[in-house]
């Protein structure tokens, strides 16, 4: 009796959507066979879509976590990404470039344009210590910044609803971003040397792997898996979710809510800082807007995946990244973002709670 095969209209819509995606995939195959679409072009789009998706996803995980646990959409998240990037790379430049160039321009990541990553010869092989140290500092500094902000701002409005917090976070975003500008200036800079690459014969479409990209991808995936484990299988993770559900109840149940909030910021901001750092390692350039420009994509990923779901954030990021790149097969570059957003909206029609909404993955 329970096994009725009736579909609700949303499900029909979902089927339709999947069918649409299926048709597109078939069309890609057709084009590959016919020769409309070069294999290398296709593989570039695909690979780049995956990498962009991981970049977005990685940056999105921290937001998804603080979003669901602290219950507000943190618009300063993008600038925490930027904070991580600037602090981490400042550390890397200080360590990696010691003795090479003046302290002033290293400290401010070449704000005066008098040196360069080339002069410092900064890349993973040449300066592994500096790069790893930078990574650690990125996490630590971002955590400190986040905690300071929490203490100064959010802590004073713990009981305010999500919207006042959201607006306050817009204020934080502005302040943070322009503090960075105040010190580092507005110029875009190359931060590391071009990545070395490894020759191989593993993948059919390319015979060399970009090491920095590889580092980003591998760390991103392992970080996200690790975080999922942490939240899913530890008491702290459960306590975090409990607090997200009902803070007062958590309090009277004996969950130390302030400590949980602290832990949330530590993990969330740490991850965010690392994300910023790794994104820059892959992109190789940095600008005070780096995080802010990602923010809309990050939000799209988080919400598409379902707020609070780690897998969701990754899936959301990948969908956005892939759509943004793959759509080039059919449409012009100025409309791919439009297509990605429209796809997202369509997905909401049959999954109003996001892809993984309701299914708690973390």
């Amino acid at each position, binding site marked *: 009796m329970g096994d009725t095969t009736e579909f609700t209209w949303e499900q029909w819509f979902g089927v339709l959507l999947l069918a649409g995606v299926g048709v597109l995939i078939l069309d890609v195959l057709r084009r590959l066979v016919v020769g409309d679409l070069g294999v290398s072009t296709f593989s570039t789009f695909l690979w780049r879509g995956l990498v962009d998706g991981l970049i977005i996803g990685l940056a999105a995980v921290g937001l998804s976590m603080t979003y669901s646990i602290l219950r507000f959409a943190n618009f300063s998240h993008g600038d925490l990404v930027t904070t991580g990037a600037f602090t981490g790379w400042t550390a890397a430049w200080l360590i990696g470039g010691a003795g090479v160039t003046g302290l002033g321009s290293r400290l401010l990541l070449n704000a005066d344009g008098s040196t360069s990553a080339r002069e410092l010869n900064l890349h993973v092989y040449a300066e592994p210590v500096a790069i790893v140290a930078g990574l650690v500092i990125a996490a630590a500094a971002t955590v400190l910044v986040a905690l300071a902000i929490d203490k100064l701002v959010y802590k004073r409005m713990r009981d305010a609803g999500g919207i006042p917090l959201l607006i306050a976070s817009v204020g934080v975003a502005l302040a943070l971003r322009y503090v960075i500008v105040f010190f580092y200036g507005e110029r875009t800079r190359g931060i590391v040397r071009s990545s070395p690459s490894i020759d191989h014969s593993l993948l059919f479409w390319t015979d060399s792997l970009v090491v920095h990209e590889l580092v980003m991808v591998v760390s991103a995936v392992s970080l996200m898996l690790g975080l999922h484990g942490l939240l899913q299988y530890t008491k702290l993770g459960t306590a975090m979710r*409990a607090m997200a559900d*009902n803070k*007062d*109840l958590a309090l009277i*149940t004996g*969950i*130390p809510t302030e400590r949980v909030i602290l832990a949330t910021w530590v993990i969330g901001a740490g991850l965010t800082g690392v994300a910023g750092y790794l994104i820059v390692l892959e992109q190789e350039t940095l600008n005070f807007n780096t995080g802010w420009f990602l923010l809309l994509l990050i939000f799209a990923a988080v919400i598409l995946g379902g707020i609070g779901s780690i897998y969701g954030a990754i899936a959301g990021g990948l969908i956005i990244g892939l759509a943004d790149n793959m759509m080039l097969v059919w449409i012009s570059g100025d409309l791919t973002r439009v297509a990605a957003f429209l796809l997202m909206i369509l997905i909401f029609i049959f999954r109003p709670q996001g892809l993984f909404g309701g299914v708690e993955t973390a």
Partner: protein
Amino acid sequence: MLTVDGLDAGYGDLQVLHDIDLEVDSDEYVAIVGPNGAGKSTVMKSVFGLTTYMGGSVEFQSREISGRRPEEIITHSIGYVPQNDNVFPSLSVRENLEMGAYILDEVPEDALEDVFDRFPILRERQDQTAGSMSGGQQQMVAMGRALMLEPDLLLLDEPSAGLAPDLVSDMFDRVDAINDDGTAVLIVEQNAKETLGRCDRGYVLVGGENRYEDDGDALLGDEQVRRDFLGG
């Protein structure tokens, strides 16, 4: 153990409790009854600093806790089942129960088993999210969570509401047993006859003020109390 003396409290600018006196000795079983909106739940919340403190004193185990922030008051020696919003809806049933024993390093398996034995449906549904349980089942989850530790004082705000009759009497038996084991109990109930019949002492709260205080049976016997508050 718990002494409330001349407590004034409320929400924001609004004073709800006026000069409330109340006492619970260790291993005592005390009930609060009264009309809707009398301030019964507010008394309980005030113990946890969840209301706006306006005057008077609250002492727990000889420690003054009035006017403190909830974080400072919380000890693992008070268990509390609030009246509304008393489960974590997106956590599974099992996780809800585990949260009850958060302060312990490990989940006390025997206590958990005990709860599961008491409410078998919870064992069956331990992986279902609490928010999707029926009203009564949620009430069981909330009770179960409070029982995960053996607190020195147990605050119960209308624990019988929404429970099926067999579970209601079961619940009362269980509370008796807990009380016999040395846990002090402060209970708010609209099921006043049953409660007053079992408790040591009872308070009648009206309009945020103490109205009567007596032995449970005495209150139950009082004609006026019966008519005004216990439904004849």
